[in-house]
């Protein structure tokens, strides 16, 4: 899980071009949107593509989005659960 979260932080920074943010500055449970990392709805679309490209995961139900993308840990848990299912 720790390894996956570290990889996710690096991928999020690259995909969203988060200049001057280092992976270690993103907390595992830090909210990604609004007051946390400050991401917005366009970033949410970028994160959906990130999951498709890097983990071959399609989010079938858009209503799951806010829960999945709440933090790096929730994304990592979603990926792990998806991989275990397959």
């Amino acid at each position, binding site marked *: 899980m720790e390894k996956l979260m570290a990889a996710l932080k690096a991928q999020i920074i690259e995909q969203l071009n988060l200049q001057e943010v280092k992976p270690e500055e993103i907390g595992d449970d830090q909210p990604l949107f609004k007051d946390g990392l400050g991401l917005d709805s366009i970033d949410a679309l*970028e994160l959906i*593509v990130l999951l498709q490209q890097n983990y071959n995961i399609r989010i079938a139900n858009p209503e799951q989005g806010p829960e999945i993308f709440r933090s790096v840990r929730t994304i990592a848990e979603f990926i792990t659960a998806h991989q275990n299912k397959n």
Partner: protein
Amino acid sequence: MNIYIQGTGCVSPLETAAEGPFPVVVNPSYEGARLKVSDPDYKQWIDIKQIRRMSRIIKMGVAAAKLSLAEASVEMPDAIITGTAYGCLDDTGVFLTKMISQNEEMLTPTSFIQSTHNTVAGQIALMLNCHAYNNTFVHKGFSFESALLDSIMILKEGNSRHILMGAMDELTNHSFNIISRFNRFKKEPVTHTELLQSTTHGTVAGEGAACFVLGTEKSDSAMARLTGLTTSYKPGSTAEIAADIIAFLAVHEIAQEDIDLLITGRNGDVEGDTWYDHVERTLFPNQAVGCFKHLCGEYPTAASFGMWAGCKVLSSGQVPADVLFKGKAPEKIKKILIYNHYKETHHSLILLTGC
């Protein structure tokens, strides 16, 4: 009705984004036949959360816009009007490349959203929270002039006090390589001091953004009066453009002798420069001549840099040594005529008068 240029902002291959007089040209870095913008620290104008999504042309345009608004002490313009020939080329390239490489699947939104030509004007409006008239003109070598014409017409309607207008174009590796195939650029190495004397084919590629705040009041910051503008598409001969210039000056009740400084878009291309040679020789043989494309390179909206340079000359009362091409700089500069053409097809005349 008089139209005044109340503020200017420019991002170019020179250090034009810094305050102060015309930047001293040390040595513009010609990389092959290509002049790149000298990027200022954009974070001084743009929030870091917004800057991450912006490609270079958006940052250049926003910076030039903010500089011009600050110089004019205008917070909210009554219109935002831009001109660009190529638009947001870099993001367009990113999006199209991904479309091909990813088989039209899993395309990210950012580069698509920001690949349209009106992205810069839209971004400026978003940052200013400006809901006023917002328009972008995409007319190849007349993009800047079309935006300028629209600004003039809106001001003449009498309902607007300040208009933020400008032009911007960026050069990417892709666009440089593609345009190079048409033999538009020099094959041999050239420096900015040699370019204007060149006797070979082609020029140097360039890019940049220049913005202006136009208004009908002579504010404290007003540096010049925009007296006239006209365009001519594919004039038949050098004699025809010379006649156009005489007619243009006549409309504004100005004699050829009244022009203190002629600024041309001479770019070192032996064919294209014959237009300027003819005009200089036949219409303005005794006047000082300035040039600007050795400083910014050639691009479809380069006339905007020429107008920015003209404003700097009028506001300072001096012709920078790096701008002066021919003759002796006059002691007093009241009227400047800017004559530019793009690829010998899009010819434009801009008349500036000192305040």
